[in-house]
C-alpha cells in the first residue's frame, strides 16, 4: 500500500473535541485546506531564504493543526523544528525534513479534498 492509498489523517480527535457534527467538521476541514497550504508555502520560502527563525515560527504554527488532524507521520517533525535554536542546529537536515512535510501534506490535502468534495 503506497502513501496515496493509506489515509494519512484521522478525524477522531477533532470529533472528540468539537462533537460529531458533520457541518462543523466540514468547516474545520475547509479552514485547514484554506490556511495550511499558505503556511506550508511560507515554510518553504523561509527554508529557501535560510531564515531559521521563520522556519521555526511556521513549524510551531502548523504543529497544533497537524496534531489535531492526527497527521502523525509529520507531527514529530514539526515538533522538532518548532524553535529557532533547533532549526539552526538541524539546518543540514531541514531540506529533507521539510520535503517530507510537503509530501505528506500534499497527500493529506488531496485526501481531504476527495473525502469532503460534496
Amino acid at each position: 500500500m503506497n502513501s496515496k492509498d493509506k489515509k494519512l489523517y484521522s478525524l477522531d480527535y477533532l470529533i472528540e473535541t468539537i462533537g460529531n457534527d458533520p457541518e462543523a467538521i466540514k468547516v474545520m476541514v475547509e479552514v485547514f485546506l484554506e490556511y495550511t497550504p499558505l503556511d506550508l508555502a511560507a515554510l518553504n520560502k523561509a527554508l529557501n531564504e535560510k531564515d531559521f527563525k521563520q522556519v521555526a515560527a511556521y513549524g510551531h504554527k502548523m504543529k497544533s493543526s497537524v496534531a489535531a488532524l492526527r497527521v502523525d507521520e509529520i507531527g514529530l517533525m514539526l515538533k522538532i523544528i518548532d524553535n529557532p535554536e533547533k532549526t539552526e542546529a538541524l539546518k543540514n537536515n531541514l531540506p529533507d525534513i521539510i520535503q517530507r512535510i510537503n509530501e505528506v501534506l500534499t497527500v493529506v490535502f488531496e485526501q481531504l479534498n476527495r473525502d469532503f468534495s460534496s
Partner: protein
Amino acid sequence: MNSFKVFIVEDDPFYGEMLKYHISLNPDYVVEKFQTGKDFLNNLHRKPSVVSLDYSLPDMSGLEVLKKITAFNPDIPVIIVSGQEDVSTAVSLLKEGAYDYFVKNDETKDRIWNSLRKIREKIDLEKEIDSLKEEIGRKYIYGNIIKGNSPGIKRIFNLIEKAIQANITVSITGETGTGKDLVAKAIHYNSPKANLPFVAINVSAIPKELIESEMFGHEKGAFTGAVTRKIGKFEEAGKGTIFLDEIGEMDHYMQVKLLRVLQEKELNRVGGNDMVKVNARVIVATNRNLADEVKKGNFRQDLYYRLLGLNIDLPPLRDRGNDILLLAKYFMDEFSKENDMPKRSLSQAAQEKLMSYDFPGNVRELKAMMELAVVMANKDVIEDVDISLNAAVRSANFLMDEEDTLQGYTRKIIKHYLEKNDNNIIEVAKKLDIGKSTIYRMIKNREL
C-alpha cells in the same frame, strides 16, 4: 444575566476554530476569536469574561498581550494555551498574572473546559457575594431597621449619622434587646467601609481560655490543639469593622491585651513573634454602665476612655412613647407577610395594654410578643387578650418603686405621660385633665 464571553486569541486559524467549536459546546458561553494581538486588544473594551491566549502571536508575544490585559483589568482571567513546553515561560507568565497555562496537546480541550468551569463558578460566586453585600446594605439602611419617631430615637438617628461620617470608635450602650447589634451593623453598612468585612464577636459567649486566640489568632503549635495557624477576628476584619459585643464582660487580662492592641494598632498572634497591623474600626456594645464598672474596679479606666469614643445610648422601649405602637404594627405586618397571613390590626384595648407595659426585654420582647399575638388572634383585630405579657404591667409598678411625696408622684406621672406622648404638652394636659400652663411651669422650674 450577563453572558459569559470567552475571547480566543490564536494565530492558527484551524486551532482557533477548533477551540471555538469546543468551547461553544457549552451553550452558556459566547465565543469570539482573534488572530492577532492587535485585533484582540482593539476589542478588549468589550470586557471578555475570560481570555484564552496563544503565547506565540504574529505581531506580539503572549506576555505583551497579557501585560496589556492586566493593565486594563487585572480581574480578567487569562488562560495561556501554547505550543511552548518551556517551564520557565510558563512560570514567568503565571507570575505576570496568568490564571493558568496549558501546552497544546490531547488533554488541552479537557483542561480548558475545566478551567472555564472553575472561572465561571468563581465569577458566579463573586456576583452572588456582591449581590448579598448589596442586599445587606439595603437591609441595614438604618431607617429600615430602626423604626421610630420619638425624640429619643431621632437623637439616635442623628448620632448614627455622625458615626457613619467619621471613622471614630463607637460605644453603644442600652438595655438588653434595644438593638445595639443592629445599630453597629447600620453604622458599618452605611459607612465608606460598607464593602469591607463586618466581624462581630460576642465577648461573653467565648470561654475565657479561648478569647485571646479568637480575637488575635494563634500560630501553629501555640498550645495543645493549635494544629494550624489561625487568624483572629481583628485580622479577619482587615480595614473593615470589628464589633465587640458585651465588652463589659471582658476579664482584666484581656482588657490589658485589648488596650495594648488599640494603643499600638498592632497585635501578636498567640505564640507568635511577628507584629500584625490592626486597621479595623472598633465598635463596642454593652448593657452595663461602664462608668460604674470603672468605679467598682471591674473595668480599666484607660480602656474605658479609649473605647468610649462616640457614645450612642439607646433608650429603653418604655421611654419611647408611641414608638411602641409603631413597632408593634411593623412587627405584625412583617410576620404576616413572611408567613402569608392576612394583615392584623390592634384594638384600642390591645394598644392600651402595650402602652402600659414596661418591656424589660425591650424591642426584642415586643417583636416576640407581637408575632405570638398574630398567631394567637382568631380575628383580623388583635385584642388585649391575645397579647401575653411576661412581666407585671407598668401601671402597677412604675410609681411604687420607692416612697415619694405627692409632689414627687405628680412629677413622675407627668414625666411618664410626656415620654409616652412624644412630649406633646397639649395632649398630656388633656389626658391628665390639668392645665397646660401647669406643665410649662414645671418645665420652666426644672421640675420635669
